[in-house]
């Protein structure tokens, strides 16, 4: 069976003509079914660009990205994926449940399925009872919770989450972590980008560190634990990145 995510020597550029700039260089990694992988890097390191190329929103100069064996951009690849974009505003004039119905229907859910599933996910992300509210009235944190709800709506087997905890309060972060743990235990594959090291530490089987568009390190959970016992995770990453800059 094909892996949920496979990326081979992916390179992506932005801009046109003389302003064209490569922001992702020869990135290669893959994620096995059932894994939870964190994608770590500073702002502007290339995390979101890699994820966008994987989702088929932008096109690669070279290399290949695929989901479940389908090339990036092919609808079949997105059949079992739940995706949370980096910073998203949702249609201000829709109600939360209408929005979820839209995304659910686009993922192929029937009306009957949606009727039971929508209250479930709203409950899951802590928005129970807010389904009839217009989204323009939602706070930033609520928008983010709704974003997670829309990613979960069709019960995908792979979750791709870009800056998953952005805009959430400590309580929200804690609840989210618990939710992701539960999903992971239920066998879902999770791939998320973050610059919150504590999140990564407590959740991930593996961490991929990206800087200036290149993969710097891959660390497994056992290695993470070892690092954690010897020095703080934070200083480990700072060293890894500084080392990259120095070289």
């Amino acid at each position, binding site marked *: 069976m094909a892996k949920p995510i496979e990326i081979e020597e992916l390179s992506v550029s*932005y801009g046109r003509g003389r302003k064209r700039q490569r922001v992702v260089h020869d990135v290669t990694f893959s994620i096995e079914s059932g894994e939870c992988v964190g994608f770590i890097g500073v702002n502007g390191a290339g995390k979101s660009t890699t994820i*966008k190329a994987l*989702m*088929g*929103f*932008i*096109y690669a100069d070279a290399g290949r990205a695929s989901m479940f064996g389908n090339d990036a951009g092919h*609808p*079949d*690849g*997105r*059949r079992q*994926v*739940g*995706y*949370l*974009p*980096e*910073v*998203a*505003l*949702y*249609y201000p*004039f*829709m109600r939360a449940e*209408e*929005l979820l*119905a*839209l*995304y659910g*229907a*686009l*993922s*192929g859910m029937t009306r009957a399925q949606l009727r039971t599933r929508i209250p479930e996910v709203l409950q899951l992300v802590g928005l129970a009872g807010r389904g009839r509210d217009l989204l323009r009235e939602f706070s930033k944190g609520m928008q983010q919770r709704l*974003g997670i709800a*829309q*990613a979960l709506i069709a019960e995908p087997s792979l979750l*791709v989450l870009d800056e998953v905890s952005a805009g959430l309060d400590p309580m929200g972060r804690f609840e989210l972590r618990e939710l992701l743990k539960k999903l992971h235990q239920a066998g879902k594959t999770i791939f998320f980008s973050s610059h919150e090291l504590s999140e990564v530490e407590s959740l991930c089987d593996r961490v991929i560190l990206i800087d200036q568009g290149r993969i710097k390190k891959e660390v497994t959970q056992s290695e993470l634990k070892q690092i954690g016992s010897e020095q703080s995770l934070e200083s480990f990453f700072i060293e890894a990145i500084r080392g990259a800059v120095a070289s």
Partner: protein
Amino acid sequence: MRSAFHMAVWPIVRATVLEAARRKDIAVLAIFMVALLFVLGSARVVGLERPAAGTFLLNLSLTLIIGGAHLVTLLVAARQIPDEIEQRTLYPLLARPIHRSHVLIGKWLAACLMGLALFFSLFIPVWLLVPRLEHYETGTLIQLLTLQPMALMVTAAVPLFLTLCFPRGLAMALALLIVLGADYLVRFVDGFPLIWLVPNPSRLNMVLRYTDGIAPLSFWGWSALMLAALFWTASLLLLSRQLFERRAL
């Protein structure tokens, strides 16, 4: 397995219509149009001593509702892609197992439906309110009513295509120029090379012919216009697809 239309296109149509209908600007336009109808209706009382004045009113109101329907269609269609990109709502949308062209078709269809709804919901009261005291050809009316939805289809496709080529403001200005002025443009800059390639939804407007009491077009003439509208729409949608499919978001 459910059809692509049912699964991918229709939810987008529904969501777009819902959004557009809840925005107040559409409501303002609708209120304006209804007020206008009210004026026309009260005109029955003020002074329609002459049949010719009835024809004038019929022409005026039909022209206005067609103009209004095209304007709404254009405004709805022109907002879709730039808004989705600006608000980043395109990402969760395209993260579903659908093709980008499904999004385009859904947006286009929604704009068409908004225009059509406005057109028919105003056409019926106008038809009932304005006294028709002179002779009008039913055949011409049927042609008018069949060509207008086709014209709205073209009008919905024009801004969709233009917003993929130009920034929003320019696209909107150009779309207005094409939808409301292409017919005059073609006439004024007579002889300008390739000007006839500009899609021309106002070509399908038969209001004048109808209120002038002129007989319908020949079957072939009517078919040619229907085909022209179909091809304009298909061409614009295909061009939009070509542009949208490979665009980095």
